[in-house]
């Protein structure tokens, strides 16, 4: 075993550069992966990790630079070339057909005409030998995200790769599912396979990886042995400076505060055959508190957001109450007029119109609530007023931009998110629902957004935050509920919540049995 770093080099990358327009997504990147090591590629969102691995997998062509495989220079022109060399990849976003079985999905990615039954048998054998149990004849649509990931991994292993690239594999897993995955990875390493492990979760990198390459703004800022680093020192390398910690003062007497957002028996049939139904959701969010909703992606969070925001309305007017008023039948505008504000997960195309100016994007969510300030007689938009208001938000939220009033698409993801959150905070809403507040946002901006949500709550508003980032939820929430398969657990007060308990709930344990199940793990 060469995990101690003495093995020969499997992959060497020198000076790899990729340019998109004026942006250097990868700027002269060096990377060395030895045989039989788990190599971490660390970096914040937008640091260039995905661009780098896409070049290694042949789905992007490098602008310049050299890739050596087993010492020989290679040109990876397409994913099939990469597969032939022995490079396999498991993407963050799965490419599986939900209406087909696991085996059929695997067959689609293989070039030869192997019969499905042979593939199913091979896949099953492989899945058990690596501790990834999988029924090859089950429909993908019926499988959990973790099981879908197993299909991707097995599909990759069937190609007998020497190097396996995993892109943020644990972002869709519960802590317990992630542990299973780590066991598999360690078994693969013991067999002498190499793994390039992309992540921004420092603890798991420290725990598993033999070497790490850290990227920031398209450049490699360091190679290190993660076992000899602390999480803080790794974070400093990733972010480039110290990040201010979020301050959350405990809130006294929340139980007595009035519930500003009440959700009662909220159910919703699946809109498409593969979307998640909502099952009898009940939740109160009181004035002054932040409630977090944890859960693996794709367990109904998107459907829940649509239902609570009023993008999709309910039959039963009492299923959503905002400030004590029935809002179930109101659309999103009506709910905003009751004092609610919403921040969706997708920034471009949902929270903001990409080709419209920031000031126009301000109007997007506030044309009704601030009708008097922004819209004059005859529906004439008061351009001066919306521009002034958007400048105010830009200053408060420290939004960095290149022009006075640029198109939303011209802003970086983090800056646009600051603007979108700021746009709603500027209204001082009494109820706020945020889906993935800091997804893809750099650490500094994320801290600012989290702090402002806490402050809004402490000033007397009710905040509901949906997030896949457990660290974030533990940082800002007064109580955490878990969404699994369209059901919502009762919120656990922050003092009682632990990663393990929340993780079990994310995996589908019954709320009452979470403590019991913990003992048996």
């Amino acid at each position, binding site marked *: 075993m060469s995990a101690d770093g003495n093995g020969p080099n499997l992959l060497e990358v020198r000076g790899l550069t990729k340019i*998109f*327009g*004026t*942006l250097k997504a990868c700027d002269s990147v060096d990377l060395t992966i030895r045989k039989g090591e788990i190599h971490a590629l660390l970096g914040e969102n937008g640091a260039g990790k995905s661009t780098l691995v896409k070049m290694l997998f042949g789905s992007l*062509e490098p602008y310049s630079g050299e890739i050596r495989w087993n010492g020989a220079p290679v*040109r990876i*022109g397409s994913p099939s070339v990469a597969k032939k060399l022995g490079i396999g990849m498991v993407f963050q976003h799965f490419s599986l057909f939900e209406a087909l079985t696991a085996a059929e999905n695997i067959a689609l990615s293989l070039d030869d005409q192997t019969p499905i039954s042979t593939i199913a048998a091979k896949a099953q054998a492989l899945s058990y030998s690596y501790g990834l149990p999988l029924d090859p004849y089950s429909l993908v649509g019926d499988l959990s995200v973790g099981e879908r990931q197993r299909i991707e991994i097995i599909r990759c292993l069937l190609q007998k790769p020497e190097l396996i690239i995993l892109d943020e594999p644990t972002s869709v897993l519960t802590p317990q599912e992630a542990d299973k995955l780590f066991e598999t990875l360690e078994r693969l390493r013991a067999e002498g396979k190499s793994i390039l492990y992309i992540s921004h979760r420092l603890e798991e990198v420290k725990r598993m990886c033999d070497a790490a390459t850290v990227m920031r703004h398209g450049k490699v800022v360091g190679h290190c042995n993660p076992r000899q680093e602390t999480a803080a020192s790794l974070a400093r390398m990733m972010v480039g400076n110290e990040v201010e910690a979020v301050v959350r003062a405990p809130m006294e007497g929340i139980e007595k505060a009035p519930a500003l957002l009440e959700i009662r028996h909220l159910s919703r049939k699946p809109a498409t055959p593969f979307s998640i139904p909502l099952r009898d959701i009940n939740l109160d969010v009181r004035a002054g508190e932040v409630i977090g909703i944890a859960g693996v992606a794709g367990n109904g969070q998107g459907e829940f957001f649509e239902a609570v*925001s009023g*993008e999709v309305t309910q039959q039963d007017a009492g299923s959503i109450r905002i400030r004590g008023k029935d809002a179930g039948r109101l*659309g*999103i*505008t009506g709910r*905003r007029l009751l004092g609610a504000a*919403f921040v*969706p997960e*997708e920034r*471009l*195309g*949902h*929270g*903001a*119109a*990409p*080709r*419209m100016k920031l000031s*126009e994007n301000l*109007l*997007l*969510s506030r*044309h*009704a609530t601030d009708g008097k300030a922004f*819209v004059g007689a*005859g*529906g*004439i*938009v008061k*351009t001066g007023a919306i521009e002034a208001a958007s400048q105010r938000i830009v200053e408060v939220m420290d939004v960095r931009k290149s022009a006075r009033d640029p198109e939303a698409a011209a802003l970086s993801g983090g800056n646009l998110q600051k603007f979108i959150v700021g746009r709603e905070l500027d209204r001082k809403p009494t109820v706020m629902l945020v889906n993935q507040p800091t997804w893809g946002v750099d650490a500094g901006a994320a801290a600012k957004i989290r702090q402002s949500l806490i402050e809004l709550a402490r000033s007397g508003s009710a905040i509901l935050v949906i997030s896949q980032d457990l660290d974030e939820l533990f940082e800002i929430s007064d109580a955490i509920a878990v969404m699994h398969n369209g059901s919502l657990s009762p919120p656990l007060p922050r003092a009682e919540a632990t990663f393990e308990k929340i993780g079990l709930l994310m995996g589908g344990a019954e709320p009452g049995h979470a403590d019991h199940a913990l003992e048996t793990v």
Partner: protein
Amino acid sequence: MRIELVKRPQRSVLFSALSPFIAFVLTIVAGAILFALLGVNPLTAFGIYFIEPVSQVWQLHELAIKAAPLILIAVGLSVCYRANIWNIGAEGQFILGGIVGSIVPVMFPTLEGPLVLPLMLLLGMVGGAAYAAIPAFLKTRFNTNEILTSLMLVYVAQLFLDWLVRGPWRDPQGHGFPQTVQFNASAILPELFPSSGRANWGFVFALVAAVLVWILMNRVLKGFEVRVLGSSPRAGRFAGFSLGRMVFFAFMLSGALAGLAGISEVSGAINQLQPVISPGYGFTAIIVAFLGRLNPLGIVAAGLVLALTYLGGEAVQSALGISDKVARVFQGMLLFFVLGCDTLIHYRIRLVGFGASRIEEAR
């Protein structure tokens, strides 16, 4: 080797503005080749095509008569297209506007007075809007493709008009010709400056509509709604705008303007209904809308250019004996080059295969 369109990181503002002019120049170049192949001196032909039809004041009036319906229709279509709703059936809405507006002078030929004309114009708009509501209803209720339904309804409208003027609405004193009675004086749209030419109030309607729609699209919340729903429907839903209502709004607004163009044409230029009341204005207006960059003020200029292609087509037919279908050819080339220029503003062409193989050889 293959050709790829690669999205440009930035759109050039300069070339976005220049695009229609470049397209016009390219059309002229292509037209010169066309005339040369037909054995005509291109310079002479262009003189007859583009200069002669606008060399006298009465001819400018003719230009305004041709431009008015084009501008009116195109201004309405620009709202649809900005909302990403593809109304191709303006020709049919134009015809229905003409028919419904003509109910008054045809069925009540003795009715006179100052209210007759406003009533006709109003009915024309109602007729066009109602006809445009059919594809809107089909789209919102059954999710049909509005391009197909609105286009097919054009043929329905054409045949309905044909049946009307040969059947129930045929002028009994018309010697069997397929046409309605001539409208009485109070049903005729007045001429603007009768002393110098035939141009009627339809041109004024077109200019007013262009200015109003420009204000709507650029200054009014409703126009913002059109642009948001057209460019990112999900953000539009987040804003609380309804796509279904927008489909009706855009279709009925453009239908009303096409209907107004139809009744203005019938009342101002033809003075009766005939089997054919439009030389394809509803389709040419699609070119006008894009040549005018979906901007109502640009559409006024584009409408005048396209009107000129109609007059020029007639002029070369009489002067040089070339088929007046040459007008259609010019219109088609213009649209082709405009869309081509627009594509190249958003994308650049990359030849894949050449470059890559050369890099390999170099190694």
